[in-house]
């Protein structure tokens, strides 16, 4: 089950790292290095947008179609790993 309005957990900090030229998630004594796609999804997990809205926004921004499965699977994985409430 994925949340209707996914929200990045307050226990994780999403931050762009210049030296790594990528976004990372920081948490106690750890760091997850994200690729651009994952970062773009997580940036939009603010508890306001629905999953469908996130998909539409990304499809518009990057002029692609059919991102639903990818977005859902990242949100599901994020939930499993505790990144997403």
């Amino acid at each position, binding site marked *: 089950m994925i949340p209707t309005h996914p929200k990045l957990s307050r226990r994780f900090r999403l*931050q762009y790292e210049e030296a790594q030229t990528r976004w990372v998630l920081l*948490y*106690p004594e750890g*760091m997850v290095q994200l690729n*651009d796609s994952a970062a773009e999804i997580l940036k939009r997990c603010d508890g306001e947008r629905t999953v469908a809205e996130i998909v539409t926004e990304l499809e518009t921004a990057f002029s*692609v179609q059919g991102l639903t499965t990818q977005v859902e699977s990242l949100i599901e994985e994020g939930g499993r790993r505790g990144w997403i409430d």
Partner: protein
Amino acid sequence: MAGSTEFAPVSEALSMLAAKTHPAGPPLWLLAELTYQCPLHCVFCYNPTQHARIKDELTTAQWVDVMRQARKLGAAQLGFSGGEPLVRDDLEELVQEAHALGYYTNLITSGVGLNEARAQRLKDAGLDHIQLSFQDSTRELNDFLSHTKTFELKQKVARLIKAHDWPMVMNCVLHRHNLPHVDQIIEMALALDAEYLELANTQYYGWAWVNRDHLMPTHEQLIEAEAVVNRYRDKIGKRCKLLFVVPDYFEERPKACMNGWGSVFLSVAPDGVAMPCHNARDLPGLKLPNVRDMALADIWQKSQAFNAFRGEDWMKPPCRTCDERHKDFGGCHCQAFLITGDATQADPVCSKSPHHDKVVQLVKKAPAQRHIPIVFRSDAESRVLHPEA
């Protein structure tokens, strides 16, 4: 993704700290060992046993400079450790600076010295997380192993941490005395609302190396404890993440120590000595640089010490041709040195090492060695062990 229309598959989205192929990518972790002073006397402390001989701590301004340089190089995680970092009364100032620089700040503490006023100041300074150590779930063993009366204090500090809404990693070093209490240790972590519990089996460095015979568990104890941990994992789900670190001596393959030498980890000791591993001070043949004399970028990229075991050039058989060398990088050099006398050997924990039997014997002979007195970490014992200076 800006400027790109490519949307990489999510299956590629999740790379944890991957091994670096570049000889010197950025350091990602800065461990700031602010002081070797500590009010506790733990028998398994990993600090160098010569701590009492190491004087001349870096000043506030020098630490700030180190943090700025490391951040510029790429470090994102910052651990304030020691000894007991709360001994430094400039800790709040350092945390504030670290926070402003964009670090994720971790305080690794025994809890001694953390009262309401300091907790509030650290919160205001932007501290992100606190790791609190316990020695056991019982007052008797906690206080015996640390040679202090700190059990109640730690409980109080744990509540203080939660009252300030910090995530808390509870850390408990395991050994033969407390492995049978692992269920109670987990219950304590749950009762105190820890988000993570690190059940860190003793690794034998520093004082733990001196006291290894007293601490060495049995295989049966470890199997039993791990089974208990797994049962709890099923039961508690995401409520508290349980990390069970199996001790090296009971493994057949070495750990990927420091994720590879000079790969992601940069440690600065209280006296300014920079090391690729906080236990590397004793390794022979290393010219350890000091942040007082050398820019951090040069230390990281060019110093002899940080390049000594970087990559694979140092490797001898069996590592050189081993198909697992990209996974464990040959293991731990400190362990190789302590057990074989040669830091360029494969970590003898590895069953492929010609010295592996030495590890087996250390485990096997431990019970017969317990007539040797246990040594509590103290300045006096440090000077006894290192009379030269």
